[in-house]
């Protein structure tokens, strides 16, 4: 089986296993946290969103160390072993962006888009996700209570919409619904215009996992000595990384597209 097909199969299988908790079926509800971004308010969710657990751990000036440490260790374990591979191989939002990425890639042929992509400021935009993780998940939760869960576009997609469809007339929008709807529409525009736009700029779980790329066992290595800098790898990279110069880049999601694209086979997965 081709490498990228294996990845697709992994994403689909994990998507289904993340959704075994529907009440009508056996309803597998566990006490695990997802090691990726998925909402526990989804009617079929089996586990907790790690960000929800983080928020709850510091809610309104409290500190519940077990609720904080538990998702931290689950994400940390995945981070140390596989870095950000979760984003490419397991995350359902990654699977969604895999689909929308084809549309986003289409825009790349326009010169204005290429120009924007090459702007220095693009690099700095990538820090937004770290800012979101610290400010909206931790600081606002500690100071005033939940904010991120109230406006989260992933929660809207995986929790709000399925709930409204499955239980019509049972719920009505709350105060944050309209704000979340606007953010969700922006989220859709983002993922249809920028390949892996959510992962690149906004995903707080990606921000948490990113630093682990520096020490993860699994990583991607480029044979810089023999690399001809043809840039086929960079062209194929959904995270728009300059692959030939990358070394344990925090942005790398280990999708392996560069590995399969390299005509000289100078890029490979390493396990230590």
């Amino acid at each position, binding site marked *: 089986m081709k490498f990228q097909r294996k990845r697709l199969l992994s994403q689909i299988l994990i998507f289904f296993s993340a959704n075994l*908790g529907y*009440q009508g079926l056996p309803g597998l*509800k*566990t*006490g*695990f*946290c997802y090691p990726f971004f998925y*909402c*526990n*308010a989804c009617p079929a*969710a*089996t*586990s*907790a*969103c790690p960000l*929800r*657990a983080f*928020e*709850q751990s510091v*809610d*309104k000036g*409290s500190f*519940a160390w*077990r*609720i904080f*440490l*538990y998702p931290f*260790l*689950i994400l*940390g*374990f995945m981070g*140390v*072993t596989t870095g950000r591979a979760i984003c490419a191989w397991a995350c359902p939002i990654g699977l969604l962006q895999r689909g929308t990425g084809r549309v986003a890639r289409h825009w790349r042929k326009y010169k204005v888009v290429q120009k924007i992509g090459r702007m220095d400021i693009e690099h700095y935009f990538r820090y937004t996700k770290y800012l979101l993780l610290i400010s909206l998940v931790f600081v606002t939760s500690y100071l005033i*209570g*939940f904010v991120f*869960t*109230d*406006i*989260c576009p992933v*929660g*809207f997609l995986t*929790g*709000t919409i399925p*709930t*409204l469809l499955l239980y019509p*007339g*049972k*719920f*009505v*929008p*709350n105060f*944050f*619904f309209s704000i*979340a709807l606007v953010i969700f529409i922006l989220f859709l525009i983002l993922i249809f215009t920028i390949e892996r736009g959510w992962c690149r700029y906004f995903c707080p779980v990606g921000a948490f996992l990113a630093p682990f790329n520096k*020490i*993860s*066992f699994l990583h991607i290595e480029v044979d810089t000595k023999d690399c001809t800098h043809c840039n086929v790898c960079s062209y194929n990279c959904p995270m728009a990384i300059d692959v030939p110069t990358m070394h344990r880049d925090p942005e790398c999601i280990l999708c392996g597209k560069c590995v399969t694209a390299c005509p000289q086979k100078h890029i490979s997965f390493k396990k*230590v």
Partner: protein
Amino acid sequence: MKKLLAVQITALLLIAGGLVSMWVVTPAYSEIKAGIVDVLCLSCLKLQPKTSSEFVFATANNESHPSFVFDNLTRGIVFLEWSGDSCLGCDIMFPVIQDLFDLTYDKQDMVSRHLVFEGNNITFYYTNIHHAIPERVSSQFIYDKDHVNGIPMFTVVTLGYDHGTVRPMYTTLYGTLLLDTDAERLALLTDILEQSIQIYHENSEGFHH
């Protein structure tokens, strides 16, 4: 290279050891399950459950009424409040219920009180699902009339006449009751309590405990 490997192995051992310890030694797994996964997060949903004050006989999960409710029905109606940590709706409703019964208690308490409401005996139970005994926590699912599985949740149990027998009858309200002000919430709850008390008085003589 050797330095990195040392860092990797140390990090892996620390994290894996910590994780296994959390599963074995601490209740983190059950806290996450009971506190986040099993309970619907209305904040994550950006939705509020529709509230109807219709009284029904059948319990939500077909289990019988818990003994702490059933036993107290001989002295009057029973009011139950379920709340939890990190729940905006619970925070909004918390002072409303305290006002309703002129009570004071902390959010993490587990409260059981016999009260007098407008001259009538009632029994009040407050349960924070994150800090209560399993019997009280699981009772939420018995009264989750509309299968919302979310908090805050309020149930009034009274006695109703059903095909020749008098038996417990209840209604359950959810969230912030789809109302905007505390005064409106208080008025609605007062109405439901008064209605429940009236129904109770009509049927209590036929109740054989």
